[in-house]
């Protein structure tokens, strides 16, 4: 019996101890009419060998594309040590570290992770992860409402540069509590329009929300916005790509006093793109906001002999203690992903992460530059981190299809969410792409354009 260690003798002896004749009797409190005696809808068991064949065949249908897709998930090279260690049974099969003394490995690792995230963001305190970037943003909105003692508003001023899906998720998750998102438009350089912001002068909002870089790859000049928000009793939520933080000014240094909350997608830190998950959301904030933070937090303390040790702390914010008054309902988080990210950041260090960021930037630059040399193709914005908006003289859907047939994922078609950009494609060439990949992309694009008609 797969995974069940009982021998017939065991079962007989155990039934005797319980005082029943069969295991069926153990279910005798379930009302008769409800009992079922089979699960006909489930296919018959496979052996390990059988499932291996099946899954390899399935995987074989999916592989082989060369991806220039970013749009929230980024393929970076992940050193082999990351998952070799993260997959160790002691990390992989451990539970939440509620028994601190028997979980010092996980706890210390989270403490180290928290430290790294404060280093990256320039803010004071990090939690131990949320589900993903989108839901972390939703939680940040809820947190801002709780934390902003000066404004009683549940409205957020959210830049159009924030991932549209993140905005949708924030609405879906925050909606029940009345969270409302008001959009801030972008200026011609693809950054949040400061002038548009000032039009909201006098209105109450809990926070202003900016992405760095924006969903369109552009880099916000966040100082003025941050200061404006603070002057108007609003908090600032920054949604930062963590790779970018190796290079770009961290939210903790925006404006006079820094942003208040940083959150976002942790996936770029050593997590494969893997069809969208599991990733992890991170969240870091200024210390005064700490008690409104959702999710677990690890603290360092000492044991009864005075030796340093680690434990979950400030649990009174959490659902298992505070129940309906908790800062969030989150319980299970994305611990294993944090394990991988902590190892990834340790391996790369600041310099390694910076080089990775620069390489992504340079690759995207190279690609954008080469594409711009094609007729009818231009780059929409000058300054960007590692994603660029490419404008075409005809709809991009056909191009995406044409490249798809050659095994190239051409990028993200912006026409649905950013129709104002015209025929625009969001491309991303990370460090996982080589110059040959980029050349192949350009060549494929050239021939696809040659074959199609300008709009």
């Amino acid at each position, binding site marked *: 019996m797969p995974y069940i260690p009982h021998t017939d003798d065991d079962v007989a002896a155990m039934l005797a101890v319980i005082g029943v004749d069969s295991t069926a009797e153990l279910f005798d409190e379930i009302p008769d009419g409800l009992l079922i005696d089979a699960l*006909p809808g489930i296919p018959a068991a496979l052996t390990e060998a059988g499932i291996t064949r099946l899954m390899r065949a399935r995987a074989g249908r999916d592989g082989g594309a060369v991806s220039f897709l970013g749009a929230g998930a980024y393929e970076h090279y992940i050193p082999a040590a990351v998952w070799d260690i993260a997959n160790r049974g002691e990390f992989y099969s451990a*539970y939440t*570290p509620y028994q601190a003394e028997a979980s010092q490995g996980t706890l210390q690792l989270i403490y180290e992770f928290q430290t790294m995230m404060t280093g990256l963001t320039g803010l004071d305190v990090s939690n131990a992860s949320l589900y993903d970037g989108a839901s972390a943003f939703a939680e940040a909105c809820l947190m801002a409402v709780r934390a902003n003692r000066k404004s009683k508003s549940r409205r957020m001023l959210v830049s159009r540069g924030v991932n549209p899906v993140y905005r949708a998720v924030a609405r879906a998750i925050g909606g029940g509590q009345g969270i409302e998102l008001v959009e801030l438009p972008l200026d011609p350089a693809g950054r949040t329009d400061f002038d548009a912001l000032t039009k909201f002068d006098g209105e109450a909002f809990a926070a202003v929300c900016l992405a760095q870089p924006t969903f369109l790859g552009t880099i916000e*000049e966040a100082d003025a916005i941050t200061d404006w928000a603070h002057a108007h009793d609003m908090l600032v939520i920054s949604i930062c790509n963590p790779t970018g933080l190796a290079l770009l000014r961290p939210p903790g240094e925006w404006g006079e006093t820094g942003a208040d909350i940083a959150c976002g997608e942790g996936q770029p830190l050593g997590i494969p793109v893997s069809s969208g998950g599991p990733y992890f959301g991170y969240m870091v904030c200024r210390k005064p906001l700490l008690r409104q933070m959702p999710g677990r937090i690890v603290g360092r303390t000492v*044991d009864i002999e005075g030796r340093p040790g680690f434990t979950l702390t400030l649990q009174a914010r*959490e659902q298992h203690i505070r129940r309906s*008054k908790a800062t969030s309902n989150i319980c299970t988080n*994305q611990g294993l992903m944090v394990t991988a990210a902590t190892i990834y950041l340790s391996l790369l260090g600041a310099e390694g992460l910076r080089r*990775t960021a620069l390489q992504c930037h340079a690759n995207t630059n190279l690609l954008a530059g080469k594409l711009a040399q094609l007729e009818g193709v231009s780059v929409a914005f000058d300054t960007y981190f590692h994603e660029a908006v490419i404008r075409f003289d005809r709809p991009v859907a056909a191009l995406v299809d044409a490249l798809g047939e050659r095994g190239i994922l051409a990028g993200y078609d912006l026409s649905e969410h950013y129709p104002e950009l015209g025929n625009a494609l969001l491309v991303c060439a990370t460090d996982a792409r080589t110059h040959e990949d980029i050349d192949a992309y350009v060549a494929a694009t050239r021939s696809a354009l040659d074959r199609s008609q300008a709009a």
Partner: protein
Amino acid sequence: MSEPVIFELSRAGRRAPTHAVAEVPAHTIPEALLRDAPPVLPEVSELQVVRHFTRLSQLNFSIDTEFYPLGSCTMKYNPKICNRLAMLPEFLERHPLGDVERGQGFLECMFELQEMLKAVTGMTAISLTPMAGAQGEFAGVAMIRAYHAARQDHERCEIIVPDAAHGTNPATATMCGCTAVEIPTGPDGDVDLDALRRVVGPRTAGIMLTNPSTLGVFERHITEVAEIVHSAGGLLYYDGANLNAILGRVFPADMGFDVIHVNLHKTFSTPHGGGGPGSGVVGVNDRLAAFLPVPIVGRTGADRFVWLTEQDLPQSIGRLSAFMGNAGILLRAYIYMRLLGGDGMRRVSEYATLNANYLMQQLVKAGFDVAFSERRASHEFIVSLKGIAGETGITAMDFAKALLDRGFHAPTTYFPALVAECLLIEPTETETRQDLDAFAAALIDIRDQARTDPDEVRAAPRTMPVRRLDDVRAARQLDLAWQGEPESS
């Protein structure tokens, strides 16, 4: 046995890894946008990293090293093959926005997973997107609210939860903008039906129930409960955290539930990963199908699999994640389910229940005070140490720590809160009778020691990397990020 914080191993200027990127490329970003100083991250060699985290890992208890009878958490064996196959490079490298043509393998798995989840819950539609039980609860309650709203029934904003409920249940009610209304448990462990009747009414949005409950018993009056709530106009939410106990024995749908979440990291054995990730897929009956969160996987005629999105489900409560939830966890659950098959799933509940009832009886025979011992245990049961605590001063927490020294992870302590000094014990089906016996012997041994040498029990743990930690100090003198040497106390 202690390990320095990784920053203590760091030395300025050390750069030993074989960086993915060897050269430092030029850039065109205006200086004003760049950070002045590099972030503080450790500067350590690859060997230091490997050694540090390998050593840290060894400081953990885990399923792979210890028995972990953590009630309500279903800490059973996570088959290695599930991880191996979910980590096939083609799955890992598939971009979530990649075209569906090059994702048919993954999508077919997801579609079949949806079908299998229907087949084990009795529900008629599934969304895989919630990323943990709590998010599944959120989705469920949000759907209940959307349902009432769609019927213009706008007053319904109360969610009833039994006092034994997991904290996520009331917290979810709040997240959804509802109010949690608590009802008591009767003396036999079932819901107090009269109390329930008293609280239902036109404000009732629904009830959240775990069945079997976290008290380790099956709610025998579940049909009456459903009847009461439904006739008051509310819906029933099934917290599937304990599905392991009844897998293939009874359909939540048949009990009268309208919506369910399943913790794949419990019943379907995806890893707990030191705290996550999990997956809290939701299933609904026809009443709620229109409101499911997207995306969902659909099948078109010729065995082609596609994403169903907001366009296909205009009444959807929307998206709860940037892409498709914890896709890789879903793959692991899919693989596990295919390995078990229907018979294997029924064996899960059979042996999980056998193990729990056996261990419960052994402890009853040894004189422990077991809550609801006259009833069948589900896959878990509660020991109350109130008597022993009164007699010796040794608490459930002391027992928990003393168990660690004996090589067992502690059961869940102090939950559910309505049993004093409780241990919630869930052995799961993957443990041997011999290990259950050893665990019972350890509890007996601790009780003996509590009587003869209580200070020694209070001194536990002694064999862990640290002894008991000062939680109060942790919360008062907050040290949440490394800044240098900790002050000694």
